[in-house]
């Protein structure tokens, strides 16, 4: 295979060179990066005290700050209501007008994506670990904590250790019923939960070029589970088309050098790849779905939602399988769109009705059952099939509950059958 692993810069290195104003940065170097976009969700409430303790008064650039509440929307506890109130007050005091409050809300990463808040070449940070998703725009997008966010709001920059890059090259065509989620689970099975810690994961190859933007969001989203600082995809016509009417600030599209130096290259061929599932209790405990289907794993709950897989394409695909069928007796099926515009789209397309006719509950947009703190919480020993991203003990409620991560299609097939099922049986 013709390839070069030389002295050139990877895509993440190029983005960080621009952010730090340096001609060239190398892995391991600590740089000060100027932030193009800062995003806060409810955890942003914890930035307010440190922001004031720092003696800061003004936010460095209110036009580059987005607040998108998503974990408890509308507020489901008094505690959540207080977090929302702290954020509203802080936003009013500091002139932060880009606040996606109840009624125009959505999962923070989806809000950034569908409103064009992150564009190629950006350095973006957010108070949620799955900020990596926005790397699909050709940006370096990373999660940070609220104290760090307070410093970003005050100064507009943060220190970063330039990550080495793992290159994941993908070729081949997905079989029927096999999706980008199956691809990222397959990669997780290889990279494992620690394999990309502190690193960037750059996706390339003909299959990645063929992925839609929503599919790229899905694969970049779960680089968080690999421990990565960011996932990243080189921008192309699909990126530019997606952002054409919505980009909020100028783009600086970059591509990796042909002779970029990668710490490791992983080649994946998706020809003949089956659907995959991550079994309890780790997102890297990945097996072919067909193996798990043979074990007749009965489920109590199915969840189609989260920043990983609740975009209109995911819900359309799920609805196409669901149409004319019923949720199995004894299964609670929760469907939660990733944003309010997606909810509206589902309403117009009749998708909500398909799910509710089948016996599912279709909720307003939020993180919903994904994080075990709002709704759809699991009791001890219960089993859940989920299109989300984590299945560690206690993630969706009781620590003894068992979560299986899979594609939206597989979640729907499972909800119909009442046990973990292969969506290809319904196609």
């Amino acid at each position, binding site marked *: 295979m013709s390839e070069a692993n030389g002295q050139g810069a990877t895509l993440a290195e190029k983005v960080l060179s621009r952010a730090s104003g340096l001609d060239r940065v190398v892995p391991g170097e*600590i740089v000060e990066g100027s932030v193009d976009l800062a995003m806060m969700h*409810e*955890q942003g*409430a*914890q930035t307010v005290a*440190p922001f004031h*303790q*720092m*003696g*800061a*008064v*003004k936010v460095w650039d209110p036009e580059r700050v987005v607040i998108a509440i998503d*974990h*408890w929307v509308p507020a489901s*506890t008094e*505690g*959540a209501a*207080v*977090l929302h109130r702290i954020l509203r007050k802080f936003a009013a005091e500091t002139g932060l007008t880009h606040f996606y409050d109840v009624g125009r809300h959505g999962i923070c990463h989806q809000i950034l994506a569908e409103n064009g808040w992150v564009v190629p070449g950006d350095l973006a940070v957010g*108070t*949620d*670990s799955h*900020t990596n998703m926005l790397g699909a725009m050709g940006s370096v997008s990373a*999660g*940070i*904590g*609220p*104290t*760090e966010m*307070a*410093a970003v709001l*005050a*100064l507009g920059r943060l*220190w970063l250790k330039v990550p080495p890059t793992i290159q994941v090259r993908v070729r081949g065509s997905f079989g029927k019923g096999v999706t980008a989620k199956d691809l990222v689970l397959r990669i997780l099975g290889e990279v494992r*939960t*620690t394999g990309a*810690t*502190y690193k960037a994961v750059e996706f390339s190859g003909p299959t990645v070029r063929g992925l839609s933007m929503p599919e790229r969001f899905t694969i970049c989203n779960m680089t968080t589970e690999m*421990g990565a*600082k960011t996932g990243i995809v080189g921008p192309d016509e699909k990126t530019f088309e997606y952002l054409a009417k919505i980009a909020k600030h100028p783009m600086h599209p970059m591509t990796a050098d042909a002779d970029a130096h990668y710490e490791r290259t992983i080649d994946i061929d998706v020809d003949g790849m089956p659907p995959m599932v991550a079994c309890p209790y*780790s997102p890297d405990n990945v097996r072919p779905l067909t193996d798990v289907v043979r074990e007749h794993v009965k489920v109590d709950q199915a969840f189609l939602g989260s920043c990983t897989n609740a975009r209109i394409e995911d819900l359309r695909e799920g609805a196409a399988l669901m149409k004319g069928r019923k949720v199995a007796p004894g299964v609670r099926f929760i469907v939660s769109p990733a944003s309010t515009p997606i909810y509206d789209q589902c309403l117009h397309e009749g998708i909500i009705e398909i799910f509710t006719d089948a016996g599912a509950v279709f909720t307003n947009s939020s993180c919903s059952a994904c*994080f*075990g*703190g709002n709704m759809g*919480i699991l009791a001890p020993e219960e089993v859940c099939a989920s299109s989300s991203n*984590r299945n*560690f*003990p*206690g*993630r969706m409620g009781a*620590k003894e509950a068992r979560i299986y991560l899979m594609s939206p299609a597989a979640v729907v097939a499972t909800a119909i059958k009442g046990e973990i099922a292969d969506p290809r049986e319904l196609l």
Partner: protein
Amino acid sequence: MKDVIEGRVWTLGPDVDTDQIISGKYLTIIDPEELKKHVFEIALPEFAKEARAGDIIVADENFACGSSREHAPQAMRAIGVGAVVADSFARIFYRNAINLGIPTIEAGGVRAIFEKGDTARIEMTAGRVTNLRTGASVSFPPLPHHLLDLLEAGGLVEKVRRELKARAVAGSPP
């Protein structure tokens, strides 16, 4: 920050994610004094009641992976945890803990030389963690200046406060 830190050890396995440190149901709590009652509820249920200020956490690989929640190191700071040492850390927790001024040390092989209740000695400049019961030790690369400065200042809040103050003195607005 002390150059030599000693404390009683609590041990944890690999891949302890933040859900096992502060579970999702407590994320609306922002008072660290309240949070500390629930710290390690899933991973180490006796910790919240029995831990004392100065205790040291010794964990295996990929400690505190998962969400970006700062509740996890906030709760540890409220307990008064003296240091967190692990074979390796997930990146957001590592930054959060350092930003809060908690000595956070990555030392490959450290988990294997400790049992619960041992006493650990950490020498920051020398880059060594020793089990005072057995005499076993592992070394670690001393922290880069940037991070030592942060810990020296007591965390990011104080560091930024000094920077903004210096800027104000120099005449530009904060």
